[in-house]
């Protein structure tokens, strides 16, 4: 309607200079034109059924056991093939998935979920309380080896009240129970007990037809590693009318140049994770593309190792300070005052990121801006280094490891090297592949500093398995149990105001001790063709195709 109002005066203006009959003709033609042009345009906002969404992933899917496979690529499949209890919206509201309603007891120890009565697994069996209990217990079982296990540790038991009602009893309050169930990694995915017992883990990992049984809007048809993954509309999905698409085909295109060419040529509809370095190029090449992003939820780290094994055996419980960064003054000189975060963002991200010191990224829940704790100050950095005994007579040299997964890592490492030179420090860059980096970092290998962005964080709580003293991913190997206490207090505090105060304390403490050295946020982009409609961007946390439709 708005378009009609804008359009009519223009047509009248043309018609007014012509004879009356012509004027009528022009008016009629104009009206006809308006009907033809604008009526379908308003119809276009009504979702259309059918079509195939062609998605591009930049990395290969690891495997298809949703409870154990690493990587976002698998997670984004799991969110569409599987269903859980609830999901989270971009503004932080919880919405029911298989759960119709839920409530928490006043002491925060009991969560009750009522399931919808029309939720079916893709093999036709019903999703019930037993399936929920089975899936949670599978995730909690150490034999499953799920990366989610640490977040289920607060669960005491799962009780089936009746086929539609299930209760989760906690050992202690856990303020992020719903966040965790909604969107930590894949979010909680319900497994079919029958299919899980019928097929082996290997069958599921391989994506054998029948073995990967979910209750989501799409069912898995085929996964051929290195080629494609195909999902098809599940006709008995519990939300009537959804999904709109008939099919989703995912292809892996690793080279961003090829990805851009395929996008421009209209061969793909959606790039699930687009390289930030190429966003400007893509914007120039495809001006109508929908480029989606938000405040960063992934921190870019320049991690420093705090302790090393005393006996030289990796992962040893007996720790000694790292020869360089075991000293807080050296950590502060290098990581805090010696790094110009503004410059890194300007050069490595063309200004498209936020310089940041706090341990959680700018877009994460309960993040705190502690940038004032680490101003770029060469003189202070040099003074601290002199205190430790480094200077022109005894220059400090350390190794700066980074990996080839993203080209931006090397750029950041190069800028840091240059910044170190300004304070008389030599940083020798060691470029390795991702697995070598992961091995060195996870297995307590010999490294001094590394540049990486680990993973996206929905809440500060979701970072605990990367930074508590006993965590496997505590790469800096700090041994400060005060960090663990902060995390525990934070996660158990049910009052949001008090919780935020603890979050602030924790982030200031970590920044002060330089256990977790953040450079900036790490931007994340998704790109869609103009004809892809209905997609709700929620960073890496929720990637759902059920409401997506194609306006072609």
């Amino acid at each position, binding site marked *: 309607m708005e378009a009609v109002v804008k359009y009519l005066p223009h047509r009248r203006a043309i018609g007014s200079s012509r004879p009356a009959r012509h004027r009528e003709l022009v008016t009629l033609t104009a009206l006809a034109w308006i009907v033809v042009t604008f009526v379908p345009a308003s119809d276009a906002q009504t979702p259309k059924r059918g079509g195939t969404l062609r998605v591009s992933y930049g990395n290969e899917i*690891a*495997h298809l056991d949703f409870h154990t496979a690493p990587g976002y690529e698998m997670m984004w499949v799991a969110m569409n093939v599987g269903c859980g209890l609830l999901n989270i919206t971009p503004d932080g509201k919880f919405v029911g998935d298989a759960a119709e309603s839920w409530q928490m007891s006043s002491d925060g120890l009991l969560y009750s979920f009522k399931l919808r009565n029309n939720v079916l697994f893709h093999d036709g069996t019903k999703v019930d309380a037993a399936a929920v209990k089975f899936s949670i217990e599978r995730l909690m079982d150490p034999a499953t080896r799920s*990366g989610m296990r640490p977040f289920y540790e607060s669960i005491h038991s799962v009780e089936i009240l009746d086929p539609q009602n299930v209760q989760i009893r906690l050992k202690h309050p856990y303020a992020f129970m719903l966040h965790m169930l909604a969107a930590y990694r894949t979010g909680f995915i319900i497994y079919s007990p029958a299919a899980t017992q019928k097929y082996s883990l290997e069958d599921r990992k*391989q994506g054998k037809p029948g073995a990967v049984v979910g209750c989501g809007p799409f069912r898995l048809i085929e996964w051929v590693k290195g080629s494609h993954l195909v999902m098809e509309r599940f006709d008995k999905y519990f939300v009537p009318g959804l999904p709109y698409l008939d099919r989703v085909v995912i292809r892996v295109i*690793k080279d961003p140049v*090829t990805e851009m060419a395929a996008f421009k040529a209209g061969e793909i509809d959606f790039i699930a994770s687009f390289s930030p370095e190429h966003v400007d190029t893509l914007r120039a090449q495809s001006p109508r593309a929908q480029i989606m992003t938000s405040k960063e939820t992934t921190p870019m780290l320049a991690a420093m190792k705090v302790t090393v094994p005393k006996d030289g055996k990796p992962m040893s419980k007996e720790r000694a300070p790292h020869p360089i960064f075991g000293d807080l003054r050296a950590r502060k000189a290098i990581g805090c005052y010696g790094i110009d975060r503004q410059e890194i963002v300007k050069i490595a991200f063309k200004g498209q990121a936020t310089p940041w010191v706090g341990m959680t990224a700018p877009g994460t829940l309960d993040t705190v801006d502690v940038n004032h704790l680490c101003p770029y100050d060469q003189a202070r950095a040099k003074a601290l280094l002199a205190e430790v005994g480094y200077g022109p007579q005894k220059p400090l040299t350390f190794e700066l490891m980074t990996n080839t997964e993203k080209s931006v890592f090397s750029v950041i490492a190069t800028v840091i090297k240059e910044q170190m030179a300004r304070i008389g420090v030599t940083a020798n860059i060691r470029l390795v592949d991702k697995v070598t980096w992961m091995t060195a970092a996870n*297995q307590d290998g010999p490294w001094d500093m590394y540049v990486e962005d680990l*993973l996206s964080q929905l809440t500060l709580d979701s970072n605990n398995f990367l930074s508590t003293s006993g965590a*496997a991913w505590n790469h800096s190997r700090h041994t400060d149990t005060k960090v663990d206490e902060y995390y525990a207090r934070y996660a158990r505090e049910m009052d949001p105001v008090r919780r935020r105060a603890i979050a602030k304390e924790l982030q200031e403490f970590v920044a002060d001790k330089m256990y977790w050295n953040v450079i900036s946020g790490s931007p994340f982009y998704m790109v869609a063709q103009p004809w892809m409609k209905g997609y709700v961007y929620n960073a890496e946390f929720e990637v759902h195709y059920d409401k997506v439709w194609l306006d072609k």
Partner: protein
Amino acid sequence: MRTYILKRLLQIVPTVLMITLVVFVMMRSVPGDPVVALLGDGYTEEDAIKVREAYGLNKPILVQYVIWLGKLCQGDWGISILSGRPVLQDVLVRLPVTLELIVLSMGVALVIAIPAAIIGALRQNTWADYTATSVAMIGVSIPEFFIGVLLLLLFSIGLGGLLPSSGWVYLPGTCPMMVCGVSLWGNVQHVLMPAIALGVGRAAILTRLLRTSMLEVIRTEYVTTARAKGLAERPVVFKHALKNALIPTVTVMGLQVGFLIGGAIVVETLFAMPGLGTFGIDAIIGRDYQQVQGFTLITAFAFVVINLIVDLTYTFLDPRIRYA
């Protein structure tokens, strides 16, 4: 002849095994642990130990090799550590893509090299010769990925999507999966740019080599005799000169297969093709030992067999050559 072929076929077995052994040992000497990649953010040292035990990665390297070999003899190529998929199944899915790419890129190379070399040799030191030589020089100097990107920019972006930038469409009757794009024309469209990107460099090498051979051959007495007998230029060139000049070229063609496999890794990655090249590179990057072994086995086997075929081609090109 039959004995020769049999001997050569038997030689394939130790050669391929030696290659797989070397790669097996080398891969395990490279830093990086596949278990770390497998467990991802669920990594704990305790779980890693259990997984290593489950995959036999805690055993001595040679014991692991013998186990792998034993299974191979029973037709079991192993299970990918990262994806849990049978390696042989994935190799068979990807093999046709790479085979087609290699055959067609060699075809592209020959289609360019043979006429260019003949013109260059017959019209030595003319503009035609200089052009052929210069183009060959440029072809040798430009890496496959760069030619690939130029082709992408020209045909996929510049000319409004004339050719698809990525992916693969199978030839009718060759789809090894449930869901495939299948069409002859689609296949041609998808393979054209990768084959040109991979073939141009080889064409350049073959042009230079064949031109030199042709120059030698056309100055030999039997070619002069053929001309003196009044034979037309075409049979002189194609029947007498080219056939003999091709012998060193064919030898190099066989050796170029190794480079083509290496180049296929780059080209397949650039054009996002589901071939053996991307399979191999993913395996190496992920330290997926079983997958690396599968890749090595198939490529080593292909290389040795193609070189055997090349050796046998000599008898066709030069009937004087006989194998005892």
